[in-house]
């Protein structure tokens, strides 16, 4: 039996189950414990697990991410919350020089089993410095794993996989998804773990493939409905789920099936995740393409503060439908 559950509660259930499963799991971050988390993702966990497992940190990302990395090198399995992934830049040296490189530079002797999680999205009118979407940026560093779940079930399953992974995994959540609801398998049916590096066909289709991750997947599903009902176009929706490792075979499989790809990506087009996906398709499935690959990405400007304009800066179902109709 699966139950309906909010995205934020699915993540909380993952944290709760992993805290119970492994005494080395510790959740740390700004206001994650006594305040129950800035977005109430960790609500009730401090009361249940206490100060040793749920740790409030100072407002210093460079400091506490560095602390988490150090702890992980000694066997702790820290889950670090960034209140916004936009704050990654003050901890950049820790996130890419230390977390990503320690295992390599220690000749494989020292693992960094850390999870860094938090929201990474635009669309909430919080301004340019709080709206960065950096999954493509971190996926560009060998040694890091990155995922961006779109649904409550995937959020829970990927979080558990991330915590159990022996390498640093950066989980990109979304403040606009925290309140969305979806089916999540019941714990009585066994551990719900979604493996890293495995994409998921969220909707079967035959005419073209919409390939996306994170909240863009929901936009693609909405666009696919419109394309089917108003234009008779059957769109397949592939949810990448993990950015790194990237499920290349699933991408090629859907393109070989439909022969057309429209990539939808909330990061910027320049050097973004979709740029890499586009390259893989043309390199490995060129002869299967019946049309150029096209993209719907966030328009190339710092996040726009005005709600109306920001909504159009980001991918949305209307932009996806327009792009599909233009390019077919």
């Amino acid at each position, binding site marked *: 039996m699966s139950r309906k559950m909010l995205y934020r509660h699915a993540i909380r259930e993952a944290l709760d189950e992993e805290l119970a499963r492994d005494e080395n799991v510790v959740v740390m971050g700004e206001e994650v414990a006594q305040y129950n988390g800035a977005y109430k993702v960790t609500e009730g966990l401090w009361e249940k697990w206490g100060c040793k497992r749920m740790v409030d940190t100072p407002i210093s990302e460079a400091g506490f991410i560095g602390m988490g990395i150090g702890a992980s090198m000694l066997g702790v399995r820290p889950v670090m919350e960034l209140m916004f992934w936009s704050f990654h830049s003050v901890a950049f040296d820790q996130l890419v020089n230390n977390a990503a490189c320690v295992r390599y530079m220690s000749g494989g002797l020292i693992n960094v089993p850390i999870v860094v999680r938090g929201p990474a999205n635009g669309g909430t009118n919080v301004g340019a410095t709080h709206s960065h979407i950096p999954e493509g940026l971190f996926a560009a560093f060998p040694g890091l794993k990155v995922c961006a779940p779109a649904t409550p079930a995937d959020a829970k399953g990927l979080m558990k996989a991330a915590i159990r992974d022996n390498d640093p995994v950066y989980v990109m959540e979304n403040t606009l998804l925290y309140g969305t609801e979806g089916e999540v398998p019941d714990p009585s049916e066994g551990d719900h773990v979604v493996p890293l590096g495995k994409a998921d066909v969220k909707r079967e289709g*035959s*005419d*073209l493939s919409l390939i996306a991750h994170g909240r863009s997947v929901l936009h693609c599903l909405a666009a696919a409905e419109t394309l*089917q*009902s108003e*234009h*008779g*176009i*059957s769109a397949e929706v592939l949810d990448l789920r993990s950015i790194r490792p990237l499920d290349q075979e699933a991408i090629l499989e859907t393109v070989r099936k*439909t*022969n*057309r790809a429209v990539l939808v990506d909330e990061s910027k087009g320049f050097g973004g995740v979709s740029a890499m996906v586009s390259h893989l398709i043309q390199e490995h499935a*060129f*002869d*299967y*393409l*019946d*049309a150029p690959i096209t993209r719907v990405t966030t328009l190339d400007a710092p996040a726009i503060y005005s709600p109306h304009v920001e909504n159009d800066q980001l991918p949305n179902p209307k932009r996806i439908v327009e792009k599909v*109709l*233009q*390019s*077919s």
Partner: protein
Amino acid sequence: MATNIEMPKLSDTMTEGTLIKWHKQVGDEIEIGDVIAEVETDKATMEMEAFDEGTITSIEVQEGEKAPIGAVLAVLDGDGSGPAAGSGDAAESADAGEDAKPAETPAAETSSAPAEKAQSKPAPTRAEGERIKSSPLARKVAAELGVDLANVNGSGPAGRIVRADVEAAANGAGSTGKPSGQAAAAAGLAAAAKSKATAPAPQAIQPVVSEQDETIELTSMRRIIADRLLLSKQTIPHFYLHAEVDAAPLMKLRKEINAQAEQTHGNKYSVNDFILKAAINAAQTVPAVNASFTGDAIVRFASVGMSVAIAVEDGLVTPVIKNAETKSLLQISKEVKDLAVRARDKKLKPNEFDGGTITVSNLGAWGVESFDAIVNPPQAMIISVGGAIEKPVVKDGQVVPGLRMNLGISCDHRVVDGAVAAEYLAAVKKLIEQPALMLI
């Protein structure tokens, strides 16, 4: 050195095949000529023979999976890590694939020649030297189907040729294989292809589907039926004639002949055998109907290829009685029985579908009184046969019991006009009403 075993092109219209069964496994040594697998094409299930010898080191396509022409099905003498990259070997086995065509017809040969040309041309150009815009997939499919892109109209943005355009052009070419006919068919389809501009694959108004409804994936056969008959209705100007014939003399003769045959060779003649014989003989009386439209000419065939519509499990096939005008009623009867059995077992060979010039479709056994069939391109005429039905008829001013049968013909008006079709129908009627004439 590793060699790839690729999906061969086993029929004119084949674009992909389903690997039904592997007769060999990884580790098996195979000799040239060994039957290694069974492949289902759009028309039949065929045995696939080896063109190379060696040990199978990997199988890339599992039983039940589909693969396009040229896809690597298995690897010989590899390191087990997948298909061989060497182009030399791939080209060799592709050539071997061509050889695999059983008893190639001349039509098939002409269609495979442009394929080689297309492969060696990196950027196809039109006669005027303008570069042809086409998608990578369209070029690949064109090479497989032997379609010259210069003759294809593109329906994509800026006139880009997409896969649907190439497939439409290939279907339009029919089995005459004449480039001019191909071009004309492609031109005729330009309008149809344009309507696909917003929806790449299916040309269908989508139904509302609920959870209780069942969605059935198209088999190759259903797809071909859909494509060919849509093409027929869209590009062939149909007209229809009907005539009621007196079936009593035919029924009487059949009874007598069957009674006689029981004591000799034992063949049991069906009503349809006589209809076929009448249709064949009438086509010699009115040869104008035994013809095909090629775009800039009409081909009048020297021989009658009688296509017989046979219902099979998930569709319908129309195998051909070749040189039908030279065959006796007994030969025709036996041939149809054999074709029907093998059609239901999917054992017909692709060349058994080639060379049809007229089709007969008989729904009489299902109690159908009359109907109008769709012309089977590139033919110009199809005969729709109803059942023999007892009904009152007026004879010399008196109402008397009669045994009547309705014959319909559907014609391509580009080839056959009403008066010619009527003449043909009258000829068939005469033979059925005086059946002894068809035995001469």
